[in-house]
């Protein structure tokens, strides 16, 4: 196993751009120049063997990108985005409680929900009823994404106690 391939595996598996310092931490003994050299070597190998991807140096670190000529084919590909936990929380509140104002969502969650609301609006999972304050509610797209016919199909939360009931003395549950 060559350090170069460890660097490759690190960048390959990273979420988004991998900061150089994280690479240096993971492969002790290598310096920034080594990393850069490895990446150059890898990219040359990819190019020579006709690979459809390469490693790009971004301001924040290294990341894989597919070569531009493949973009037309990738556009056809449905690459779904996974919602963040925060967005899911906001969505859950709106689904069960909506239409409701942002203030109600924030107070139930105990944190500010601005960016999640933005992201959910962008994905058209929620919409806004005009008024003061603005009211948020879930859209038909929401039902589609969750495979529901209507909001009434959401399970009764009390029924869910069987899974989520708090165990005495072990509120965090098992970290399995």
């Amino acid at each position, binding site marked *: 196993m060559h350090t170069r391939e460890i660097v490759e595996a690190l960048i390959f*598996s990273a979420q988004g751009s991998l900061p150089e310092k994280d690479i240096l931490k993971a492969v002790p003994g290598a310096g920034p120049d080594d990393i850069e050299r490895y990446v150059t070597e890898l990219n040359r190998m990819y190019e020579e063997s006709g690979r459809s991807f390469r490693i790009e140096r971004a301001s924040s670190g290294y990341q894989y990108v597919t070569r531009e000529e493949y973009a037309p084919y990738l556009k056809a590909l449905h*690459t779904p985005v*996974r919602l963040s936990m925060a967005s*899911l929380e906001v969505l859950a509140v709106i689904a069960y409680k909506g239409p409701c104002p942002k203030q109600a969502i924030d107070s139930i969650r105990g944190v500010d929900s601005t960016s999640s609301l933005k992201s959910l609006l962008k994905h058209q999972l929620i919409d806004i009823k005009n008024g003061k304050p603005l009211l948020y509610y879930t859209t038909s797209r929401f039902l589609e994404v969750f495979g529901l016919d209507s909001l009434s199909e959401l399970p009764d939360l009390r029924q869910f106690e069987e899974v989520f009931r708090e165990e005495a003395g072990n509120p*965090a549950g098992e970290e399995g």
Partner: protein
Amino acid sequence: MLPAEAERPAPEFILRLPEFEGPLDLLLYLIEKNRFTLENLEVCPVIDQYLHYVEQARSLDVSLAGEFLEMASYLIWLKSCLLLPSAESGEGGEDFNPARELKEMLIAYRAIRQASLDLSARPLLMRDKFPRGSSQQERDVASLSIGALLQAVNAIRARTRKYVMDVIANRFDIQGMIERIEAILLNRRRVALNDVVKTEERMELVGAFVAALELSKRCIVRLVQRGLFSTIYLMRR
């Protein structure tokens, strides 16, 4: 990674009892320790050892899950069946074997345990191999599950340690409230906000108020309040 049977200390070890996933796990351990198989299983010594373990655990104040005690009483019953002279042998034409149910239970459990070890032996994503990291372009939202949504509810609850459910149970339906108010105002010129709600619940009152504001905005009603904290009336326009 997983505790092998052989590495578990014997149950006679007084200061610290080995831990078992459950009564069936303990029974299998005892069977293996006695070098029995399910085919040549002698149930009585295994039952005795099981009861001994439970007794020890209780004397050491180890909190045992209720299932262990349930199993203990089942085993005591089973043993009594085995020890009593089988007066009615041949009952129903079948050879009466009270241990069979236990054996079948153990076989089913053991098979599942083997299957779980088998699963765990597979190269596991995020343990033995890692997926390609995220791609840069943002696209549609992946289809989601109800489980994920309820997971989120649980996360909120765990964090805030309040009754999310209370609030949820009280969700108010603005549209329904609007319709209710409109229905009332078909026959009357005015109605007090407090008379619109059916219960004393605060959330419902809030809902009625929001509905009233909405109707006012749509120029369907006029809101009238003579002074601070006095009754709010909805007047048909």
